[in-house]
């Protein structure tokens, strides 16, 4: 009996997931109709400003939350196959561009919380992961995250999400290679340099069953979606306001594609702000509807996520100011290139 039970609950899980997927797609296909129906209850149509704003809100909120739940669940399951310890073992001693590429890719799937940036950073270095490769990981992990990708996909379609994925990885790889070439190891704080290689103990991971993996997917949804949903609501609320009330092409004059200084200004403005992709993308979508260029707003978004002042204060515990300055400078340059490329392509 006890041997049969785990298998049985895998079947229950698989059936549950299958039913959920079907229901998910059925509802997802009806969202425009549902939003129209809700605003018709209020006696409004999309012709009026208030009606358009409310339609935006009632269409985008369920759409974005449903996408988030789906993508975050899948990511929660994928992440059970990875851990910082495994990633570190894969990256240890890898020099050259291949190490940076691998590090940036692993940054997407390795479970990572920005509050552990410093322990992870030191853990990587002490196990012989080169400095540049470590930076590729640290830049990619927060920037190319599933929440940003799910929201971009929901609001702009797969092409923009794929471009963001590719260019975000590009920034992480490029910045890591540059920092590696500059040989900045002596700009680590002294106590970091003293930590001996091999001091870290290998962690014994327990064998996970598929039930554990599904459960941790659900746990991941509770944790991430539970944390970001208020930001999404506020973001969509603000976005709805912009959508209904800001005049068409209002943004074109200072955030349009032909305003060359738009991208650098967006990057600089992003640094002191600290929020997550969930709150900022709905606003971004609304701004673009009013004539802002996609590259400019994406540069702003990347800058808010990857170059936040609070994160630099955390990193300052392990890095000397010169290295922080180089890190910020290189990443900012990479983001600006992304902004210009987006504006030029789209």
């Amino acid at each position: 009996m006890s041997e049969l039970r785990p298998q049985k609950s895998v079947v229950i899980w698989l059936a549950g997931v299958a039913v959920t997927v079907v229901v998910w797609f059925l509802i997802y296909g009806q969202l425009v109709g549902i939003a129209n129906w809700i605003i018709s209850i209020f006696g409004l149509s999309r012709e009026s400003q208030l009606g358009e704003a409310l339609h935006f809100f009632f269409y985008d909120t369920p759409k974005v939350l449903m996408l988030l739940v789906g993508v975050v669940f899948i990511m929660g399951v994928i992440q059970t196959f990875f851990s910082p310890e495994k990633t570190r073992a894969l990256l240890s001693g890898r020099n050259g561009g291949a190490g940076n590429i691998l590090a940036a890719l692993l940054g997407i799937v390795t479970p990572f919380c920005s509050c552990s940036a410093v322990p992870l950073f030191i853990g990587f270095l002490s196990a012989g992961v080169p400095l540049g490769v470590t930076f590729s990981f640290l830049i990619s992990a927060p920037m190319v995250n599933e929440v940003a990708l799910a929201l971009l996909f929901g609001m702009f379609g797969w092409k923009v999400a794929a471009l963001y994925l590719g260019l975000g990885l590009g920034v992480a790889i490029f910045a890591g290679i540059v920092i590696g070439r500059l040989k900045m190891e002596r700009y680590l704080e002294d106590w970091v340099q003293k930590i001996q290689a091999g001091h870290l103990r290998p962690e014994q991971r327990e064998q996970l069953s598929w039930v554990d993996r599904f459960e941790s997917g659900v746990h991941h949804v509770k944790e991430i979606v539970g944390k970001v949903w208020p930001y999404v609501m506020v973001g969509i609320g603000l976005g709805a306001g912009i959508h209904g009330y800001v005049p068409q092409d209002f943004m074109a004059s200072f955030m349009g594609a032909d305003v060359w200084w738009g991208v650098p200004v967006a990057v600089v403005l992003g640094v002191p702000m600290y929020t997550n992709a969930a709150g900022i993308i709905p606003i971004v979508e609304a701004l673009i509807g009013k004539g802002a260029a996609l590259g400019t707003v994406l540069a702003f978004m990347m800058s808010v996520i990857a170059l936040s002042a609070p994160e630099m204060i955390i990193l300052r515990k392990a890095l000397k100011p010169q290295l922080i300055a180089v890190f910020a400078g290189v990443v900012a340059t990479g983001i600006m290139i992304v902004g210009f490329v987006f504006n030029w392509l789209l």
Partner: protein
Amino acid sequence: MKQIKILGTGCANCINTMKMVQEVAASKGVEIQVEKVEDLPSIMGYGVMSTPGVVIDGVLVHSGGVPLRSKVESWL
């Protein structure tokens, strides 16, 4: 009396972990002494790469993310 150390630099997850440990201990009637370790060199001394980490009587039992409640219950 169990000596429990919560390793972490003071982020929300570390505080949640500490609260959960205290709650579980209170509900099970286990006497514990909880200490927060926020100093980075000592956190690194336990070989932890992702915080929060949990150390019980000198042994690292968990690292990375808020532990599941069932896991905390099994420690106490």
